[in-house]
């Protein structure tokens, strides 16, 4: 892996490998997040993928895409703490499989046009608003997704954690064509850009093509990682007519990836709730059959962690107490050496397996670049291996519960025969 800084905050990373059948490209624009920005980006993502100023209809865009053996540009937004990233991602079949040097013949131009010339007008914005609204409503209909979003809103009130990266229903109506055009122009001209290429490519050719494009200019960086200050714990319950309830617990250890106790926290979280042999899975699902789904995750760039589970409403307090007990057992140093070792092994296994998936490679290195702490995977693996039981015990003392959100199912159980 090589990271080439070709301009201020314009980085190119080429992973040259012949093992994939295609070549993956990812263009990632980064800026500060806000509810309005997230909504504009959601609308841009909707407008930028199926038409552009050079291919004015979906029919024409589909024709161009199919000429490239079904390449399409997927535009999506991801939050990284205080920042939001819009990614234009595409893949093109390696020309050697079809006796055609696809990459040289039009692909780069097509891809760069997709970024530079989205079709932004009243008509496309109207469609984008309709689609974005549908996506937002659909995600509210999914009980677990809804519960997580509500919990993040409560725990992150006033901070980027509360921003829904898919946009805001309230903001949709106030955004106009000019807002989108201005934002897009600013994005392609000024925002930090990281470009990733994974596949069998000529490095110099890629570098020259980027240097010869509109993207080649100095750009502005923004910060990503942050900590939410200490808060008073809040408990909220909503009800919905459904069989199962969803419980979300949010913890704010205020640990971010540049902190020395970051890897101890990650190892601890893995042992606590990310493995099928983790404490939560074993104690709550396997031993007591109280749930099917339970897990714990970090939201890395916001310095928080959370537990999610689907349970019977009348078991919510019991399950919460059991989760508290698991936290307490980690805090008091009761985590077994074998579970700590297994957690480390699984984390290292995941890191090594990234090499077999082009999208995973890109996601992984992008985060590493944003964190700015590591130069290679081996450094990270070494830090994971160095984590001690004492560090785990100490870092879990910081796991303060800040939010309990219960989406309570209040329906009689339906029976489907």
């Amino acid at each position: 892996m090589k990271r080439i800084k070709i301009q201020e905050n314009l980085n190119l990373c080429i992973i040259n490998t012949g093992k994939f059948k295609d070549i993956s490209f990812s263009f990632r624009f980064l800026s500060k997040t806000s509810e309005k920005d997230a909504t504009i980006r959601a609308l841009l993502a909707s407008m930028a993928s199926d038409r552009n100023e050079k291919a004015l209809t979906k029919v024409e865009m589909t024709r161009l895409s199919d000429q490239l053996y079904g390449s399409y540009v997927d535009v999506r937004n991801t939050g990284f703490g205080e920042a939001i990233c819009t990614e234009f991602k595409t893949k093109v079949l390696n020309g050697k499989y079809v006796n055609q040097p696809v990459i040289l013949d039009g692909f780069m131009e097509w891809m760069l046009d997709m970024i530079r010339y989205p079709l932004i007008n009243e008509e496309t914005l109207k469609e984008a608003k309709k689609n974005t609204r549908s996506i937002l409503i659909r995600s509210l209909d999914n009980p677990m997704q809804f519960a997580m979003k509500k919990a993040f809103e409560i725990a992150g009130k006033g901070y980027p954690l509360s921003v829904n990266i898919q946009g805001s229903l309230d903001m949709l109506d106030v955004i106009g064509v000019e807002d989108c055009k201005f934002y897009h122009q600013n994005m392609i001209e000024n925002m930090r850009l990281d470009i990733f290429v994974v596949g069998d490519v000529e490095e110099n050719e890629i570098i020259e093509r980027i240097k010869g494009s509109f993207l080649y200019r100095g750009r502005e960086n923004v910060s990503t990682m942050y900590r939410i200050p200490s808060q008073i714990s809040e408990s909220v319950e909503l009800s919905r007519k459904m069989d199962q309830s969803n419980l979300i617990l949010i913890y704010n250890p205020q640990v971010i990836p540049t902190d020395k106790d970051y890897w101890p926290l990650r190892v601890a979280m893995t042992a606590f709730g990310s493995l099928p042999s983790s404490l939560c899975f074993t104690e709550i699902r396997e031993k007591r059959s109280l749930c099917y789904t339970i897990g714990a995750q970090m939201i890395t760039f916001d310095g928080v962690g959370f537990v999610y589970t689907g349970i019977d409403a009348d078991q919510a307090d019991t399950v919460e107490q059991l989760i508290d007990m698991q936290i307490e057992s980690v805090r008091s140093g009761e985590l077994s050496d074998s579970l700590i070792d297994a957690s480390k092994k699984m984390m290292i296994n995941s890191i090594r397996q990234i090499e077999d998936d082009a999208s995973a490679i890109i996601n992984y290195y992008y985060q590493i670049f944003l964190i700015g702490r590591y130069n290679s995977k081996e450094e990270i693996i070494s830090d994971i291996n160095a984590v001690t039981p004492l560090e785990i015990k100490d870092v879990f003392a910081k796991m303060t519960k800040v939010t309990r959100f219960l989406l309570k199912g209040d329906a009689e159980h339906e029976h489907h025969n």
Partner: protein
Amino acid sequence: MNIITNKRFNETIYEQKVSSELKVVVIHKPGYVGSSALIATPFGGMHNKLTDQNGNIIDILPGSAHFLEHKLFESEEGDIMTAFTEVGASVNAFTSYEETVYFFSTSNEIETPLNMLLDFVSNLQISEDSVEKEKGIIIQELRMYAQMPDARLVNETYRSLFVEHPFSNDIGGTEESVTAITKQHLEQCYKLNYHPQRMLLVVATGESPQRIFDIVENNHASKSFDDAPVVESVKITEPGHVFREYHEFQLDVQSLKSTVTYKINHTMQNESDRKKAEWSLRLLMEATFSALNPAYQDWMDEGLVSDFFGFEVDLGEGYGLLMFYNETEDSSSFVEFLDKEIKNSSISDSTLQQLKRRYIGQAFRSLNDLEDMAISYIRSTFAKADFFESLTWVEDITLYDIENSRSLIDLGNRCIVSLKKSKTS
């Protein structure tokens, strides 16, 4: 050892039967750092009646294959999932209608987890208590899917479409059938379906194929297996009509959705015939109901179709369906629209060539992922089809085939399912 090299896709596959009669397949992927191993049995959610060599019918309770998948991870020696994590391998399993698959992936050495996979799948160790305890977990799983709008919509659609076919049951069964499953029933299902002769092991790896065969041979040589049961799934005679023409159900949601599903009756026995007919229908529908059709933009603007709109075609042994889904409250207008456009559907030669190019690209891309490739291989094998041939079936489709496939659709033979908003919300 049988070696199959496909020059076009630049892939080589090695096959060998070990002494236990287990067929082992190695998809050799030099350059990959990880390995994925999957062991599968052709016993899934649709196998609710089996027959033995004497013609006796054995009834299988809905959800048994899935229940068994949960219980196979139990061992007297300790938790199997924990044992895998201790060697840095990630283990999991899934049950579909057609098969149950147990698998792990690792970037560490493969021998230990491969032996563990072979060991736990060869040995069912369950107690009455553990079976009872598992019911709570499975019922929570069923409830989770029942309140997910899209999963529930598909489930209700299958229940409306099929009269006898087990697709009308959820793969996991019902709360009642799960509650009725016993230790003895699971042991019987296991005995009938988990003999090495019935199973298939596929390993996608950069490791030497011979080493994989040796590991499996050594493992199975140390085990004794009963004689292979002679068992077959009872052929399902599905009536030509749908079970119910209209059905609505309620959830506490904002997005109201509908499916319109045409039941396809066919007599094709051969998988390649079925899948070619499936491709023909899919291509015709793609040309009509997607951005390839200039009218599609108008349909979106007029609200006839939403961004959620789409379709599925599936022609399997003894069943067939063409399902459309959309976000709409007005299912009658949706049906009218579909009936009219299906009648008018057409595809030009240039569109056919365009689509073939797209799907060949997709076929190449499907070979990037170790697990996906292994699963496709398992499914092709269980369906008695050639894996590499299946990747290029789309290339054989002609305009004539597509025109013929149109006759499979009977516009009058369909069911409508609508997701409505709960009255109390």
